[in-house]
């Protein structure tokens, strides 16, 4: 029994998370394109009527759990603080930041052994990259936002902007006038 190519493409995105495609390739119906400044294009799932998994909260239904979710969220916030620098615009695609800068912001957010926090924080950056929330280039020592952030609805961003404004500034910008 052969499977419709559109159905298979949508199922594949569920298996793999955001999938890179060629710049000229069309997005099958039900998938949306997220384009990087470099021209690289990612396919993302698009849900009916603009729904997002946040809908589950209205029904007191738990999403899949992850290990150490609080810590992962704080590390993600630190990476967002460094990569989403112009808060008046959309977070995606944002700009490339140093992994060291994201870890610096993270260690400034808590009170603990900074070396230990950096080590755990790097592990969380890797986990966030595995799930498509961040793009990590450990050879170059850089981090960028992952294509999943392109799917955030614009009207859901205001509380995130408020939160990020309260976080420590990334080290390279600390001296710059803002």
């Amino acid at each position, binding site marked *: 029994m052969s499977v419709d190519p559109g159905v298979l493409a949508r199922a594949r995105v569920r298996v*793999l998370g955001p999938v890179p495609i060629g710049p000229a390739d069309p997005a099958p*119906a039900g*998938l949306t394109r997220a384009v990087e400044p470099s021209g690289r294009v990612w396919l993302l*799932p*698009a849900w009916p009527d*603009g729904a997002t998994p946040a809908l589950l909260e209205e029904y007191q239904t738990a*999403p*899949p759990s992850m290990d150490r979710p609080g810590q992962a969220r704080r590390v993600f916030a630190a990476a967002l603080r460094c990569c989403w620098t112009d808060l008046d615009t959309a977070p995606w695609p944002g700009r490339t930041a140093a992994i060291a800068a994201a870890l610096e912001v993270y260690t400034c957010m808590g009170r603990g052994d900074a070396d230990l926090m950096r080590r755990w924080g790097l592990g969380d950056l890797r*986990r966030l990259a595995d*799930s498509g929330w961040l793009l990590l280039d450990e050879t170059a020592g850089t981090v960028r936002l992952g294509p999943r952030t392109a799917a955030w609805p614009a009207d859901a961003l205001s509380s995130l902007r408020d939160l990020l404004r309260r976080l420590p500034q990334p080290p390279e910008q600390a001296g710059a006038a803002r």
Partner: protein
Amino acid sequence: MTELFEPLLRPYDEKRRAELVAAFMAVEQAAEPVPEPTFAALREPSQRRVVEEMLALVGRTLIRSRDRWISGYRDEVAAELARDPACGQREEDRAVLVLVLIHSVAIPRAEGLLTEDSWMSPVPTSVEELRKRSQLPIGELESALRRLRAAGLVGQVKAGDDTAGGFVPGPQFHRLTAAARRRLQEELILAAGPDSPLAGAVRARRRDRSGRQGGEA
């Protein structure tokens, strides 16, 4: 990008439409099967059929466990995805997962401790057992377990006062169709006792099935 679902949703008023979308999102995104009474579109068979049609557009289907529902890959879609090397699991992850299934499900089921047609199990497989049987260096085993946990394929059980901790099949096993559960069962029989009469029966049944399909084609 709603146009994919639009032909299915268009006939319904706003309230019904929201109920259909909520049920679709719940079965697709929840960690565990969701209770039927909570979702209007899962309660009514006619609405449930629409949810099923929405899921079919993304290669998925509804799976029932008692009065709860969740979604999983349609069998023909899972077969296609399994042929795609990019979609496969690493070999060492598969090896560790099979050990968890043998120790947490197959052995307890053979002992009569698990009776349901399910791959969920409360019986943990210890890390020691995994290390001994997989023969993987501890670092590789831990990496495999981390990936399997992140994918929801195994869950961790913490040790209690008089119970040992370890790993059990993860919530993704709720998402197997009846045919997928049967295939998994057969694969484990073939792996665990290739010369057993049961394995012989599995091979004979598969020969019959492929022969019939070959005859139909």
